[in-house]
């Protein structure tokens, strides 16, 4: 049976619903040594800022039950170096290029969006949710007014699809998603990491030098799924689901709950070829159920009344 994995989400048509989540795939270079990246839907670049950033001091990772905390803190070469050195590579992978940008202010987002708007990229992912930098994007992303302002301002300078990546560290994710949709985002990406901490009681010190970090991995999947399902009932723009996906069943859970595409993050860190296996297994699972088009699954969850 021929199985069609292609999907359309937030203004981007992709050969597969699998996007590689920002910060877990670099710019694709390292992974290119392991497999043919054209099997992917797309790659979300590491989060970029206007100026290059060294990021936080190490330790930057802590293991938790079925998850990990990271406090990388947006180490990146800056948008200009990205455009010069990394984008050309990303363009020729054969999958879509999503550029993740993180700002400290509305101006930052606008400045980067302006630079990207004439480049051969497929979408801009606004990181409104990084918990690892002291001021900036997570604060913006937890206030509907600021979120609206950023998205409107970016919308004003670019025709590229805008994906708003939201933080789960809020009282109402639907409120934020509605704000994003109203402000003109083409899709919402749910979710970035949950803010967490790990402690070594013996040394009386947090494990991460940044004290807190972002929790990712299977531990957060139930939270992410709940948010996808909740937002699916509230907004009309497509949802890209992220959080704890390790296997093909996880992908399908997210799609059924309302995601048009998904992102794979931490799974890449445990198995660099995770996406290859998931792609293979998706075909198998769909085949067994006589489902030929994965895109038909989106939002098919029937809630109990």
């Amino acid at each position, binding site marked *: 049976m021929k199985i069609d994995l292609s999907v359309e989400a937030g203004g981007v048509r992709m050969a597969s619903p699998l996007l590689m989540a920002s910060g877990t795939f*670099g710019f694709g270079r*390292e992974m290119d040594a392991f497999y*043919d990246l054209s099997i992917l839907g797309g790659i979300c670049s590491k989060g970029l800022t206007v100026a290059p950033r060294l990021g936080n001091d*190490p330790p930057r*990772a802590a*293991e938790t039950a079925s998850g990990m905390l990271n406090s990388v803190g947006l180490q990146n070469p800056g948008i200009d170096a990205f455009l010069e050195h990394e984008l050309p590579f990303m363009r020729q992978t054969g999958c879509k290029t999503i550029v993740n940008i993180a700002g400290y202010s509305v101006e930052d987002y606008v400045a980067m969006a302006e630079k990207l708007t004439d480049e051969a990229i497929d979408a801009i992912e606004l990181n409104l949710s990084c918990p690892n930098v002291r001021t900036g994007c997570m604060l913006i992303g937890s206030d509907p007014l600021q979120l609206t302002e950023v998205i409107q301002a970016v919308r004003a300078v670019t025709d590229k699809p805008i994906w708003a990546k939201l933080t789960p560290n809020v009282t109402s994710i639907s409120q934020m998603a509605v704000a994003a949709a109203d402000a003109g985002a083409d899709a919402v990406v749910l979710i970035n990491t949950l803010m967490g901490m790990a402690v070594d009681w013996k040394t009386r010190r947090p494990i991460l030098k940044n004290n807190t970090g972002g929790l990712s*991995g299977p531990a957060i999947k139930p939270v992410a799924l709940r948010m996808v399902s909740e937002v699916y009932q509230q907004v009309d723009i497509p949802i890209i689901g992220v959080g704890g996906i390790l296997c093909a069943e996880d992908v399908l859970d997210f799609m059924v709950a309302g995601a048009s595409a998904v992102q794979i993050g931490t799974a890449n860190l445990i198995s660099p070829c995770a996406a290859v*296996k998931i792609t*293979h297994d998706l075909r198998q699972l769909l085949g067994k159920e006589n489902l030929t088009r994965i895109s038909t699954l989106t939002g098919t969850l029937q809630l109990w009344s």
Partner: protein
Amino acid sequence: MDKIPADPAGQRHGIKYDPVTTCEVAALVRLNSDTSQLTLKAPRIAAAAEPGQFVNLEAGHFLRRPIGVMAVDRQQGLVQLGIRVQGRGTEWLSRLRPGTVLSVMGPLGKGFQLEGYRRVITVGGGTGVFPLYYVQQMCREQGIDGIAVCGYRSKADSVLTDHYRAAGCQVLFASDEGDLDVEGHAAAALEQLLQSLEMDRQEDTLIAACGPNIMMQAVAKIADVYQYDCQVSLEERMACGVGVCLVCVCKTKTKTGEANSRCCVDGPVFPAKEVVW
């Protein structure tokens, strides 16, 4: 387990090279109270691993654990690792039994660059003595003169001393308690050693260090004073092991200023002069 199972061969369209393999545990030998020697059947890794490289091992918890390659037997396709129990993952590894199948990624990272050197002095402390043993093995294979300085807390704590002796290198064992060749740290022992060596082989000698940061820093300083090339193997918490997550960084000097380099792919071995301590 949340672990992504290794996929059966032939089901992986698009794969160029999967750094992950599943390996059977061939043996686990206890070396002392908290240290064990793990032998894996891993022909591909045995064939490819260079001294200073490491593997990233499934360890019963969410993340893999990085462990340096301590020895390989290319004929039999075996890889040996020396593991000191630090926490939950190494504890789990130290209770493995022969026959258990593990997911192992590797070999990873940049090892020691031995090319061009005619003499290599390894300086190891703590678990650093494990990967450095592989350096001495390689020196022997390549006809490079080897001198091994190993620092331990005490004689009771010393491991691999017979291995090192058998590797044919000159050995100098130091212990904090003074119950081995030299009293004091590995760095102090190195200094003693350097004083006793003729000063005419600076250009063709490499000092290769692995151990606690403070020891490596001291070694780097001594190397600088005595004008020897020095490479150090850094340790930082890792996740991916392949350079994509930027979790494992250490500060280094580059032409353009300070950078956060990735221990897993830019290292773990760095020229000592490039490290910002």
